[in-house]
């Protein structure tokens, strides 16, 4: 909580014959973050992969090719296979499977190719239906030239002008005129020129076939249907293979990935001719367990020892550690940057403030419940990973939004409780006046109480930013020293607190145009604090830091977006409801007074309007709440740049040892 998991640097050393068992142990434990060995010396070189590596990766390659050809999807298996069972006959099985699948797959490809060829032939034969000749009569002449094509003029008269000795066949295909012209070769040139000048002329090529076009077509059709039959039977065979072997393929894929990973691990070790050394990190609280396991599996032949961490802090791998509820918010932290080892991990703060900002913005019972339901639905669908974390965040935010919906008294923009808005009485859905809780009279209508809500937003902003500076102060003390912390964070805290105190006194006076309360102790104290802060800042960071002062103001003002986005969301809902109501109860408050069509239009407006507003209501508050965290909060303390903890191992899904 608040701090990443404590890590211990370890060195593992042993003789080379113990390398394989050691790798197995660490892979199974899935805790060792290996630091890659890169600086080769005369004695120590980067290790070579185990002998099995090339074999395993070869199998893996063929297995993946098979699974690609079968179009296998990962989630199709639920069975867990024992690793030992798999390894006994994996090579035979894969070779056999490859033979069966590849041969069929190649055949299928072949058939598809042939099909394409035949279909092309078919479409090239079809135009010749219009002409009464068999296909072989178009070719094979020595002294006669044959022209064929589409044309849209009276060809005969034009050819007659060239020469009278010719034969012309005319026909039709798909409503276009088609011709075949037989003419002595000496006129080839002239006819060609004539045709080329004719725009409607499109040349036709004779397909390399013999016989009458209708007969050829029938034959082609038969061949195609045969090919199709073949291909569909092959496909069923492949489907059967897929069904039969899918579990094996998925399990074997995982098994081989793991084995490859294991056998390639020495690439990250330092090795001498007879020994190996692994550098790495383990969570401190797991050290004893690891030592015991290693002892057990290698009979004490592999040596494990702690090293005092006098190393560069950046090298330490970071594993965030948080209570279950705050865990999903680690996603938002890691998206921004992985924290450094000595930094505070702000997930827990996000757990409180992110949903709070979200709910303050959305604040509607109807929308809140839908957002909660969406979150719930996604969690049911995706049990792990980023989407699951995101859905959990959505769920928490949605629930809190529902609570704030009650406070604001809004249900899809309709008032829940009776209220008076701009002097007009409006009946709520429940038809009762809102209760008073802890002195606050519900509902707090957002359009009516802009001023107090705006002040609340600024208050939240001031608190949030100060919290950021406090964390920053702590980080600076840990990473540097107290003096540095006061210069860089303390000064800003003074400026902020002093400034707020002074402005709290100056603003009301400015607004009511009354004289400045110059003697007010709070104003004096605030201004004093402000100036002391500025002076410390200048001493610590130089005059240039004064340029940063307006940023602080804009940071605080930025929190007004909480109100603004809430108002716009409530405003859209209100507008949609008004429009729909006007269509549905018209005229003079009579239900369906304007006819059923208008009433239906009203329902459509209501539905579309609220769907759009809901989408905006998920996106807007989500992003802006995140922005307040990243830009206003994180910049006060967060540096990031740590290395993520990636233990050597594999989370088995389909196999077990």
């Amino acid at each position, binding site marked *: 909580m608040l701090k990443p998991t404590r890590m211990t640097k370890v060195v593992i050393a042993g003789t080379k014959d113990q390398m394989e068992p050691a790798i197995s142990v660490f892979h199974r434990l899935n805790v060792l973050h290996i630091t890659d060995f890169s600086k080769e010396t005369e004695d120590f070189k980067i290790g070579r992969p185990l002998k099995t590596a090339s074999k395993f990766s070869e199998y893996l390659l063929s297995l993946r090719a098979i699974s690609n050809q079968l179009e296998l999807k990962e989630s199709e298996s639920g069975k867990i296979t024992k690793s030992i069972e798999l390894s006994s006959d994996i090579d035979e099985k894969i070779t056999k499977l490859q033979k069966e699948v590849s041969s069929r797959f190649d055949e299928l490809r072949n058939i598809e190719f042939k099909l394409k060829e035949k279909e092309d032939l078919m479409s090239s034969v079809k135009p010749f239906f219009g002409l009464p000749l068999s296909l072989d009569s178009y070719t094979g002449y020595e002294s006669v030239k044959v022209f064929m094509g589409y044309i849209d003029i009276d060809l005969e008269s034009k050819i007659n002008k060239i020469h009278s000795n010719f034969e012309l066949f005319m026909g039709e295909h798909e409503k276009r005129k088609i011709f075949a012209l037989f003419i002595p070769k000496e006129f080839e040139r002239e006819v060609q020129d004539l045709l080329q000048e004719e725009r409607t002329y499109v040349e036709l090529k004779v397909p390399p076939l013999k016989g009458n076009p209708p007969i050829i077509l029938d034959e082609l059709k038969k061949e195609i249907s045969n090919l199709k039959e073949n291909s569909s039977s092959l496909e069923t065979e492949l489907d059967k293979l897929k069904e039969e072997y899918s579990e094996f393929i998925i399990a074997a894929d995982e098994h081989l990935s793991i084995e490859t990973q294991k056998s390639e691990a020495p690439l990250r070790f330092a090795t001498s001719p007879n020994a190996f050394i692994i550098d790495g990190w383990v969570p401190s609280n797991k050290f004893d367990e690891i030592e015991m396991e290693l002892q057990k599996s290698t009979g004490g032949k592999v040596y494990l020892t702690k090293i005092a961490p006098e190393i560069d802090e950046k090298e330490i791998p970071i594993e965030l550690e948080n209570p279950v509820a705050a865990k999903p918010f680690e996603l938002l932290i890691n998206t921004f940057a992985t924290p450094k080892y000595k930094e505070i991990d702000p997930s827990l703060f996000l757990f409180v403030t992110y949903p709070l900002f979200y709910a303050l913005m959305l604040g509607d019972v109807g929308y809140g419940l839908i957002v909660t339901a969406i979150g719930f639905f996604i969690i049911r669908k995706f049990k792990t990973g980023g989407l699951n974390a995101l859905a959990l965040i959505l769920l928490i935010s949605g629930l809190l939004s529902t609570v704030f919906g009650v406070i604001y008294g809004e249900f899809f923009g309709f008032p829940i409780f009776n209220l008076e808005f701009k002097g007009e009485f409006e009946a709520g859905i429940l038809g009762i006046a809102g209760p008073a809780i802890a002195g606050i009279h519900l509902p707090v209508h957002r359009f009516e109480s802009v001023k107090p809500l705006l002040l609340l937003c600024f208050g939240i902003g001031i608190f949030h930013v100060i919290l950021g500076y406090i964390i920053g102060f702590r980080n600076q003390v840990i990473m540097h020293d107290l003096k540095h912390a006061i210069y860089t964070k303390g000064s800003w805290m003074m400026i902020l607190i002093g400034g707020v105190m002074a402005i709290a006194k100056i603003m009301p006076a400015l*607004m009511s145009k009354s004289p400045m309360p110059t003697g007010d102790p709070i104003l004096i104290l605030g201004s004093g604090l402000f100036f002391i802060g500025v002076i410390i800042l200048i001493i610590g960071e130089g005059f240039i830091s004064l340029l940063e002062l307006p940023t602080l103001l804009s940071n605080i003002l930025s929190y007004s977006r909480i109100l603004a986005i809430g108002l716009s969301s409530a405003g859209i809902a209100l507008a949609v409801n008004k429009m729909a109501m006007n269509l549905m109860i018209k005229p003079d408050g009579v239900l369906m007074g304007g006819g059923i069509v208008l009433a239906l239009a009203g329902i459509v407006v209501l539905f579309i309007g609220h769907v759009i507003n809901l989408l905006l209501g998920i996106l807007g508050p989500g992003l802006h709440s995140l922005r307040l965290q990243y*830009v206003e909060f994180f910049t006060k303390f967060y540096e990031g740049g740590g290395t993520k903890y990636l233990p050597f191992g594999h989370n088995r899904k389909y196999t077990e040892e």
Partner: protein
Amino acid sequence: MDPTQAGMVAIGAGIAVGLCGIGAGMGEQAIGAAAVGAMAEDEKFFGKGLLMTVIPESIAIFGLVVALILLFVF
């Protein structure tokens, strides 16, 4: 507040939000494009990219605050 005055206040608020929004948008466009470019190279730039992109946004917020004060506080 007479109606003319109220109308003027509303127009003023509109201009404040509108012009500030345009200004912020013009600022953000170049930074946003560059940030997306950097992110395409290396996804780790997401955090920094977002940070840079939203810097001009404070201008829009200033306009918004002015508008809110005009409409609701005065």
